[in-house]
């Protein structure tokens, strides 16, 4: 029963694939409902299994509280993506170019990718780990290139697949070295056998590069701008949250469970990566015009903050990162939901196009502003609280300079997030602007994600809940046991 959520998701995927063959076009709305319901049931089942621990297949598939927290993220991201792509797939958008076709396949592929991510965090074995990662990534290549008639979209898909293959190869090579060093694919065994050697460092460098690609860490981030801009916006939203969370899950398993106790020594690597990631992301975001490209660089800089949680090992590291992930997905999805809404209705994607949105659609502009402020880390929104915990981890690890850098970067980021707020609130309204109608699906999504972005900041016990439940997992004892 431990694997039930994954099985539900996969089963839903197959049912949709089959039904898609038989259903008449006008009845295909049921596919989206099915996809959503499948994810929702899996989410319910996952939530229900809180407090349970267990393993399958001789310890190769483990469910613990950490895995559950990650799975909730993946399922929420999947559900939001279904909601965000609803209008485009059902052809309800005012802007005809925004519409997308082949919804049966879209949902199937999305669900498979989600299932891959869910397997990923439960894996305790190099092979399962890699297969799960591929299961989550390859569907994303397809999703990115969904609008195959759109040259920009095709280009994005091609770039993503080429560079994705490159990063996969590097990652696999890194994992191969680990196997070579230890003679085992079991994470626990590897962590006991490995010793410091140049081969290990090479392996770590390659794994970092492979995962840096998924997390959009500078300098492995190059693909992000072009792919984020070219992909259909719901897919971009999915990439920016789910794919990043999957990367976090992977890096968590390898760096905490395998390299465990020796971890302190890699600190400087993460400090440097965090510094250049947030700095470059923020600086380049300043001059962007296209809002999706802008969000790509914003996402890059957020990844820089996120990996500050790895400056450990401290028991606070993982809860801080998880909390930030939650704050980040809700916040980021608020912004993407508004971007999708605006593109659906007008087909516009430039920052200048948001002129005077606060006068035509004040509530939506308000939600967007809250989302942007939370991304910039303005109290009392969740982004601020999340950053606070991450910065305190960095400070505890002795990287006070990094906290300074991160604070300066937050200031820079406030500048460019405010650029959009300025367009919405200060610049004169566009000549042909009228009040735009919002579909119930998007309105609901914006409402729920905005509430999440606000309330995670205000409700203090959410972090405490993560902290306490995560303590039930064995991740911290694994680190302390292998400390040397």
């Amino acid at each position, binding site marked *: 029963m431990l694997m039930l959520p994954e099985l539900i998701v996969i089963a839903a995927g197959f049912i949709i694939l089959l039904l898609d063959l038989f259903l008449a076009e006008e009845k295909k709305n049921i596919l989206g409902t099915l996809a959503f319901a499948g994810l929702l049931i899996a989410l319910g089942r996952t939530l229900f299994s809180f407090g349970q621990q267990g393993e399958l297949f001789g310890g190769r598939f483990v469910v613990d509280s950490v895995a559950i927290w990650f799975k909730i993220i993946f399922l929420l991201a999947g559900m939001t993506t279904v909601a965000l792509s609803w209008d485009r797939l059902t052809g309800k958008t005012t802007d005809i170019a925004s519409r997308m076709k082949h919804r049966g396949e879209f949902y199937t592929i999305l669900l498979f990718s989600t299932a891959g991510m869910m397997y990923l965090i439960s894996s305790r074995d190099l092979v399962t780990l890699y297969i799960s990662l591929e299961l989550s990534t390859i569907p994303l290549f397809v999703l990115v290139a969904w609008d195959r008639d759109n040259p920009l979209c095709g280009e994005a898909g*091609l*770039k993503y697949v*080429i*560079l994705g293959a*490159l*990063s996969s190869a*590097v990652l696999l090579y890194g994992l191969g070295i680990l196997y070579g060093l230890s003679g085992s694919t079991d994470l626990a065994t590897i962590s006991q056998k490995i010793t*410091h050697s*140049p081969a290990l*460092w*090479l392996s*770590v*460098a*390659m794994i*970092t*590069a492979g995962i*840096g*690609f998924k997390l959009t860490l500078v*300098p*492995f981030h*190059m*693909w992000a*701008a*072009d792919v984020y801009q070219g992909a259909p916006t719901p897919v971009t939203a999915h990439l920016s949250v789910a794919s990043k969370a999957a990367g976090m899950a992977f890096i968590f398993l390898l760096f905490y469970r395998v390299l465990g106790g020796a971890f302190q*020594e*890699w600190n*400087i*690597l993460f400090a*440097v990566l965090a510094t250049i990631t947030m700095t*470059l992301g923020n*600086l*380049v*975001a*300043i*001059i962007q015009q296209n809002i999706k490209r802008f969000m790509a660089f914003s996402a890059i800089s957020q990844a820089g903050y996120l990996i500050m949680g790895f400056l450990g090992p401290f028991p606070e590291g993982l809860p801080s990162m998880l909390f930030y992930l939650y704050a980040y997905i809700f916040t980021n999805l608020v912004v993407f939901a508004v971007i999708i809404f605006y593109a659906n209705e007008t087909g516009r994607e430039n920052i200048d196009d948001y002129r005077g949105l606060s006068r035509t659609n004040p509530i939506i502009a308000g939600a967007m502003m809250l989302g942007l402020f939370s991304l910039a880390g303005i109290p009392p929104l969740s982004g601020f609280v999340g950053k606070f915990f991450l910065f305190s981890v960095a400070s505890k690890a002795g990287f006070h300079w990094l906290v300074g850098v991160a604070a300066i970067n937050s200031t*820079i980021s406030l*500048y460019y997030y405010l650029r959009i707020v300025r367009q919405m609130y200060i610049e004169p309204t566009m000549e042909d602007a009228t009040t735009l109608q919002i579909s119930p699906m998007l309105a609901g999504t914006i409402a729920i994600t905005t509430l999440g972005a606000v309330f995670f900041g205000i409700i203090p016990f959410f972090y405490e809940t993560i902290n306490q439940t995560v303590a039930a997992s064995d991740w911290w004892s694994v680190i302390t046991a292998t400390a040397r």
Partner: protein
Amino acid sequence: MNEGFILSNAWLIPAIPLISFFLVGMFIRPASKQAAGLVATSAVFLSAACAYMLAWEYYQAFAPEYQSIVPWSIEWLRYQEFLSVSVGVLVDPTSILLMVVVTTVSSLVHLYSIGYMHGEEGYGRYFTYLNLFTFSMLGLVVAPNIMQMFVCWELVGASSFLLIGYYYDKPSAVSASKKAFIVTRFADLGFLLGILILGYFGYHVYGVLSDSSTSVLAEMNQYSSTAIQPFDFKFLNHPAVIAQFADQGSLLGGISMLTLAMVLIFAGAAGKSAMFPLHIWLPDAMEGPTPVSALIHAATMVVAGVYLVARLFPVYAASGSALLIVAYIGAFTCLFAAVIGCTQDDIKRVLAFSTLSQLGYMMLSLGVATMAHPLGYTASLFHLFTHAFFKALLFLGAGSVIHAVHSNEIWDMGGLKRKMPVTHITFLIATIAIAGIPPFAGFFSKDEILAAALGNHHQIIFGIGLLVAGLTPFYMFRIYFVTFWGPHRTEGAEHAHESPPVMLLPLAILAVLAVIAGFVPMASFVHIGEPLGHHGINWAIAIPAILVALTGIGVAWFLYAGNQDRVSKLVQNLGVVYRVIKDKFYIDEVYLFITHNFIFKYISRPIAWFDRNVVDGSMNLTGWATRMSGWILSHMQTGQVQTYAAWYALSTIVVFGLLAVTLQ
């Protein structure tokens, strides 16, 4: 000790206006103007009811010792061991007195404003600010430590700024609010410096005491919900602490640190209480709506300075010279303002100068008291108590007149006696009360002040006090005769009619209070040091004072009640002297000269230049550099997959290099 509900929840008294401030400001004001006024007013009435309950419970539970207690407090800031600050409520006879005065006057002013401000633009905003003002003052009054007092002190300043500048489209109101804020802020700099000096030594002494004599600290901890802290009034005022203070060494010229700290703190008090030479903001502060003036002059803001000196009285008493400065500045302001008050033509301006003069009485009375002969302390607070009622009444009465005549000039009024009977009677009662005619309230407190001055052998101050006791009735009856007697001088006065009942009710209540407040046996409630023996009216002082007052009234009657020729002749004879007094001794002009010719030229301009060029320039440079680097970095993004892949491979090698170098 059986603590009642209000006694253990004394925080309610300041909290109710605060909650109402948020409610009215954020939710009710946008919805309904009428509801805003009603909610704000009833909140303050509720707070007043709590204050009365508190007084009742306290005097029941703590008679006859009257300990000062801290029934509720929470830690607010903790810097290190021994150095922490709480937010709490201090209950002792003095704070209860102030709470009762503030809530009573404030609730009546709220009630009056419902009528007075009817139909004004920003009616809801007005009540929001009024609630904030009341909260700030109550927070100040209940402060158990000097830090909380300072915070609320600044809040009082900020909310007075908002209220004085209420008519923000009127340039004179804007400049008056700025003036009030800047002058009091300037004085607060002294206050803050004084706090820092006092706090530094307080912390030091605290360490000494906690090492050597813990019993002293334990004694102070009695009746407190949190441990005593270095900034607490109870700590600072304790004899053991003051004895330690006295040993803290002296500066150049033999001024002890204690005196320096107390003089600096008095600068803050003088700013808020508008003592000479920081008095210039108060006469202008009448640019706000008249009920606000009543609140500022009677119950909040200006009495804060008197209250601060009274709170720290034992420390002032330990530094005799600081107390002497308080006494002489008080006495000088008392005379100075009364003289100016005789020449002003704006009814509110006369009342403003009379407030200055009466505050001078309170300050001088504190100044002449000592720990051995503390009659002046009681007298000062007694006068604060009685003055609050008749001054509020005078201002509200003046507001009623202004509301009817639509002018502030007394020469535009006249003959209102029959047109506005209730206003007339209540105004007359207040005028007699301030003039010090028995058995009205002002007589008792003024008599006690004069007795205190003479009792501690301050003959000069007693002389000034007696002289002002004659000037006060003169200028007060001057405006009374000109406003209410004689013929109608303008159209406005011709068509004046009585104010609505919602405005008259507070007048009537205050009139009753102005008559009976003097009969409160203040000495048995509020005192410091040894309990005062019961002492009746000192007729040797009272009779001359009454005679002087009657003379003042007689002169006013002679000059202003009938033919005005006598006045113009007198003014002509006085010539230059009259001009100088009428122009308030050119104190404002002196300030303007100094600020324009020295401060602006040699301090402000260089700072402004530095700000515009160096500070702003560096900010612009940072912004420009950031954008430029973003632009340069964006060129890495070529759009070529080959470039991306090359970067990727190269970066992997760099990461490996980094690891190899750091882990070697």
